[in-house]
């Protein structure tokens, strides 16, 4: 699996937390499959010029959360597990929603205007998905 991390050093979120969140999101979204291998600690550290210990820390945390497991000779792989429960997915969405809410307040939008913007964005995405997956045949 080729997870492309987005590492932003100059933010308040520690780098290990950024890695944990991004793997958790990929798993919750179903964009990874059980058995997919995470890139090695060394490879991630080298690619993003970060401390290997930070990557180890992130992977250990993911392991303790049950999202990945250490497999002999393979490194870290995504665990076979039920898709994330709804409340987990909502919890992962919360920071993005909080941010959008803060920005809408800064812009002086009313609650109704902000909600309408969210509905519009969803409608736009749905229309796009429908045209794209017209041929897709999923149970």
């Amino acid at each position, binding site marked *: 699996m080729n997870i492309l991390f987005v*590492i932003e*050093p*100059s*933010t*308040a*979120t*520690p*780098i*290990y*937390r950024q890695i944990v969140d991004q793997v958790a999101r990929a798993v919750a979204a179903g964009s990874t499959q059980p058995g997919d291998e995470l890139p090695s600690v060394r490879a991630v*550290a*080298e690619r*993003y*010029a*970060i*401390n*290997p*210990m*930070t990557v180890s*820390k992130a992977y250990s945390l993911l392991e303790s959360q049950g999202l990945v497991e250490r497999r002999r000779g393979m490194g870290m792989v995504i665990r076979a597990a039920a898709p994330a429960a709804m409340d987990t997915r909502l919890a992962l969405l919360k920071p993005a929603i909080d941010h959008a809410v803060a920005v809408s307040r800064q812009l002086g939008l009313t609650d109704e205007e902000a909600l309408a913007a969210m509905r519009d964005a969803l409608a736009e995405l749905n229309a796009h998905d429908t045209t794209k997956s017209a041929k897709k045949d999923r149970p």
Partner: protein
Amino acid sequence: MNDTPAISVEHLSLRYGGVTALDDVTLNVERGSVLAVVGRNGAGKSSLLQCMLGLTVPQSGHSQLLGCPSLDLTDDVKARLGYVSQSPELFEWLRVGEQISLIGGLYPNWSEELARALCVRFSIAEDMKVRTLSLGEKQRLAIVIALAHQPDLLVFDEPVASLDPVGRRDFLRALFEHEARDGEPVTVVISSHLLEDLERIATHVLFLEKGRVQLIGGRDELAERVQLAVTAHAIAPQAGLLKSRQLAADEWQHVVDTRALADGALPPDTALRALSLGDLFEALNT
């Protein structure tokens, strides 16, 4: 595994002329950690590193490197130490390749192969005269030499100030390419103003202000614990209140250690904001 800290500093004070460079500094650097030393110009960063290395003699207090008194380092400890100063001292009359071979001969753990590979990576031509190198190239050469003898402890005093962004990333990567002799990660102490670089590698951060330890702790722990609060009134000095500044008639900004601050110290519903290293640096130093 050895539990002695890589560096231990106790009650170091250093004054020269009428200036207090260090004022009762006490800290430990655990093996395998990367300590970022930050502070404004004149905060005492270089003085601290030089005292740690035994290059400057403090008025009081003492320090140890790898369990050995800094002012009396054994040859063995010196061989396990890599240091790059702000203005590296090199043999100006030699060519780069000659300088590398000459220094290499002095270190038991020297890797000629690593030295050559690092020269290629840092774009330093071995047939250049050291005298003709730019400051950035001299720094890179000093870094190559410090890394190629595969030390257990690396000390850098603003090593990357003259490197371009690509060179700086390469430098950060090169720090983690060898292990210490006991198989543990290498210990690194690095002073710099380039906070984004430090954020990539630091496990611990030391904030110095006027020669004193202003704040020290694990990077991730600090990010979760030390936050910014804005209130309408001043708050009395107390444990957990690291810095306060008045922004406007009814606006005060505080840097707080949320774990040390007593319940009720802040008005209810005070919003707390997490800080990047750069934001924390600014909030602590203005």
